């Protein structure tokens, strides 16, 4: 295109650069999407897919009622589950504030010969709700009532609304 002005050429150049950058971004985000899990689930650990001899991350939910503190020390035991398999975890240290039974957790450590996961670091996860306690409990009550109503009146119209 010899009749283009220098300014127009530069405009095309910058436009192409931004297009290329957009393509690169899209590729990076797609790669992140398929690759986000950088931890092993309890099912994978039970299936011996996790490395036996070096440090890895174990991720899942803390089983309700499984948290036990041993005596006066800092040692705690809890179970991590993905609702298909469960792995026992031992940890010595202070648990993060958001650590809770039933909530998500990522533990870094290695498997002991007895099959217990010895964690060096335990990370808790937060969620996307930023609500004060009253609002959150109202929402939960409303949800529970909705579920109860749907169970009491199992008409087709109602069961659709409860979902």
């Amino acid at each position: 295109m010899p009749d283009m002005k220098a300014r127009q050429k530069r405009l095309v150049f910058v436009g192409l650069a931004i297009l290329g950058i957009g393509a690169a971004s899209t590729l990076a985000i797609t790669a992140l999407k398929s690759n986000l899990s950088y931890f092993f689930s309890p099912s994978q650990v039970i299936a011996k897919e996790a490395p036996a001899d070096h440090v890895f991350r174990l991720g899942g939910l803390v089983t309700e009622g499984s948290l036990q503190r041993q005596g006066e020390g800092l040692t705690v035991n809890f179970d991590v589950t993905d609702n298909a398999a469960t792995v026992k975890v031992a940890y010595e240290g202070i648990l993060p504030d958001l650590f809770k039974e039933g909530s998500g957790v990522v533990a870094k450590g290695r498997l002991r010969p007895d099959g217990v996961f010895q964690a060096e670091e335990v990370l808790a996860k937060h969620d996307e709700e930023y609500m004060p306690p009253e609002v959150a409990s109202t929402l939960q009550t409303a949800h529970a009532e909705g579920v109860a109503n749907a169970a009491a009146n199992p008409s087709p119209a109602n069961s659709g609304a409860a979902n």
Partner: protein
Amino acid sequence: MTLNWFKFASPATFYPLAGRLTRPFWILTGVLLVIGLYWGFFQTADQLGGSNPQKEYYRIIFIHVPAAWMSMWLYIVLVFWAAIGLVFNTRLSFMMANAVAPTGAVFTFLALWTGAFWGRPSWGTYWDWDPRLTSELVLFFLYIGYMALHSAIDDTRRADRASALLALVGLVMVPVIYWSINCPDPTQCAALHQRSGLGKIESNILFSMLTMTLAFWMYSFATSFMRLRSIILTREAEASWVQELLNREHSR
């Protein structure tokens, strides 16, 4: 009435305009900061509920989230001016890009720093190679790299073009940061950040967060205009209008 925008593309015209705009932006910054911080400290709940029971320390989001938003927004502004400069060869646009960069770097650092302080008590770690943390750190290096490259080249016009190109290529990071949390089920991936939405944030918390964002934005205008004025003076030191300005200042 038609406004001639190109008039303001001249550093000599924009210098006094930037000077007049600085004070209103500082006043807006102050007012919005006071409202945002007051609301954040006294009109919001002491702790969160539900399955996200954060205690008082959750209030750091009034600094953390606005700073993180501004770090991305200012990078887009920087690239905008750099691209305009590359296409139209206008001196003032390169100076704008230069003036925005340090403020952007400060907000990126602030987001990383407050995030670390918040992460220790809640997640249990200061730092993790979570996709969002990692990409935000890369953004910080891009700001630093842009400024370093610019100051490493003596010829200002070459420095402008080289660093503008670096900034343009770095634009790739902004969508990556924004969409780095795309895990539908938090139990399925280890990303520590969770994607939130405006509907999932209580209205008082949201109000404080948005007010603080506006305050940070106004602060960015104020500091960028102040920095722009000194950049204009440094680069146009030989120009006759700067000499006249100096003479007037001296004779006062």
